[in-house]
């Protein structure tokens, strides 16, 4: 049995520890539904006990401080998955926007090719009719417009992605400044022996927001978190942040530069920024390339057949389609060169009512282009490509979302506040305290009995 002073000292320490724990628990419960909040736990350490002449002295407990329960590994996984999902979502949204230009509306490329084929069949039946000739000309114009509309739609999606690059960089710079400031706060609090829990939660929230914007890599150092892009460009080091910049590149799109002015556009992956760059520089150019090739090869093939025929005026056929010299502008710039329907080269020999060349013109639609596919098949491949990419992005986003949900649940299990546990413990302690209070009364009565006994 220790001395009285020792016992009282232990009791007082216990009171201090209890008060601290109460404050922390109140804070935990009040923040049970706060997004990103991690439970704080009281750090207690037992004081050393010494044995002297058969008596124990010392002991008790000291309140050392508070410690957050953030699980850094799960946080890291969440940041990575968040970044991936954000990138996938950005791509998915863009592809869905692009899909609308490839759906069958009657004015799309596939419908226009079908209509041109039908008009050529009608022309074959009535090669001398100005009505059927006009119909072929109108179908050609509709096809050119369909190419124009689709190309412009893709370019529009590309411009939207480019705007997102500028917007994302601005948001990244705002967040890295905030993270630098929060890093400094955590370092100061830690140095003064205080809990950085609330600030660390805020820091984690900001880092998670940053991971939505771009893929990041995080390392812990004595100064706080060091954050770089996935390829190593520094964004935050301790309380210092490094802003990204944008500048207009030779292609007219915004390029991302690091704090030294080095172009890092191609190395950025993940997040909204990575997704936007992927759409702008890879997805859309790939689709545009297929569309341009189709427009160019079809128009050239049609013009070649037209040139081998004779029009209603007895002259060799002129080009029906005009195509820009630059292949990259083929789909957006294709147009119909003639306005007079009589200039359609219906005849192969030049005799009146001859339709020899119409079959050849129709064959352009059913014969493989230099790409190895017919025009309709080439366009179908393009539509499939867009649909497939959109579906993949959507599926991937869903899968990542489920993964994120599991990770968030895991984080909740390790860092969240479980009210049920808190309540169950509370009731058991209350019961124990009531029992203890009854014993205190009994001991007081015993004291009186003993004093009476001794007098």
């Amino acid at each position, binding site marked *: 049995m220790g001395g009285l002073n020792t016992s009282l000292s232990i009791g007082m320490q216990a009171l201090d520890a209890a008060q601290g*724990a109460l404050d922390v628990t109140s804070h935990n419960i009040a923040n049970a539904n706060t997004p990103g909040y991690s439970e704080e736990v009281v750090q207690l350490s037992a004081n050393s006990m010494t044995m002297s002449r058969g008596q124990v002295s010392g002991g008790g407990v000291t309140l050392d401080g508070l410690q957050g329960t953030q699980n850094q590994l799960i946080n890291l996984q969440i940041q990575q998955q968040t970044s991936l999902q954000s990138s996938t979502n950005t791509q998915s949204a863009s592809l869905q926007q692009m899909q609308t230009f490839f759906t069958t509306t009657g004015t799309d490329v596939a419908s226009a090719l079908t209509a041109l084929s039908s008009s050529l069949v009608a022309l074959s039946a009535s090669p001398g009719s100005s009505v059927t000739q006009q119909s072929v000309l109108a179908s050609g114009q509709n096809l050119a417009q369909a190419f124009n509309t689709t190309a412009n739609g893709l370019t529009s999606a590309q411009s939207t992605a480019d705007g997102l690059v500028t917007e994302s960089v601005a948001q990244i710079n705002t967040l890295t400044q905030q993270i630098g400031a929060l890093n400094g706060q955590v370092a100061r609090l830690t140095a003064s022996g205080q809990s950085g829990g609330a600030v660390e939660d805020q820091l984690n929230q900001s880092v998670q927001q940053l991971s939505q914007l771009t893929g990041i890599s995080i390392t812990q150092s004595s100064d706080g978190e060091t954050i770089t892009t996935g390829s190593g460009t520094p964004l935050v080091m301790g309380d210092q942040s490094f802003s990204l910049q944008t500048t207009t590149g030779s292609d007219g799109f915004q390029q991302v530069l690091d704090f030294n002015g080095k172009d890092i556009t191609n190395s950025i992956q993940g997040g909204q920024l990575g997704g936007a760059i992927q759409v702008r520089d890879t997805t859309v150019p790939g689709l545009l390339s297929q569309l341009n090739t189709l427009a160019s090869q079809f128009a050239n093939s049609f013009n070649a057949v037209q040139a081998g025929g004779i029009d209603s005026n007895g002259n060799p056929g002129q080009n029906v389609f005009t195509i820009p010299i630059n292949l990259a502008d083929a789909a957006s710039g294709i147009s119909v060169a003639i306005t007079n329907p009589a200039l359609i080269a219906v005849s192969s020999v030049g005799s009146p009512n001859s339709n020899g060349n119409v079959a050849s013109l129709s064959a352009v639609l059913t014969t493989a282009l230099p790409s190895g596919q017919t025009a309709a098949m080439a366009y179908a491949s393009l539509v499939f490509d867009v649909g497939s990419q959109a579906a993949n992005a959507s599926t991937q986003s869903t899968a990542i979302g489920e993964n994120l949900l599991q990770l968030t*649940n895991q984080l*909740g*299990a390790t860092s969240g506040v479980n009210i049920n546990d*808190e309540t169950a413990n509370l009731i058991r302690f209350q019961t124990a305290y009531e029992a203890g209070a009854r014993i205190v009364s009994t001991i007081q009565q015993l004291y009186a009995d003993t004093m009476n006994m001794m007098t």
Partner: protein
Amino acid sequence: MMAAGVQDRNRLATEYLKLLRSLATELEMATHAISHNALAELEESLADQQVLSAKLSVLAGELSGPGEANPTTSPIRVDDRDLRKQILIATDVLQKLNRGYAALLQHSSRSAALMASLLGSFKGQFQEASGPRSKYQTWSCQM
């Protein structure tokens, strides 16, 4: 007969002293258990305290009982002066320790009441932990 009575009383008084010291030890253990959030230890100590308190009450009755039976006789005393002094010291220590323990219990009960009020007023949707039960031990009732 008289010598035998004294001997019995001394034996009872020695037992009484031993129980007083054991009870004091239990109060220290209970204080320690509360400060370390060790609910099981606290509940075990409380059970021991109840047993010790009951035994002490019975012994106190036995030591003072004959005096009540015969009012003309002086109150029963512990004849061994040294034993008597040790009992007084142990009682004093126990009394003071009991006050500290009472203060701790009072504070803890008040805290528990505050917590109960806080939990009762918490209307939000509770966050349920899921997945493996790897949750850290919490300190809500470390009061």
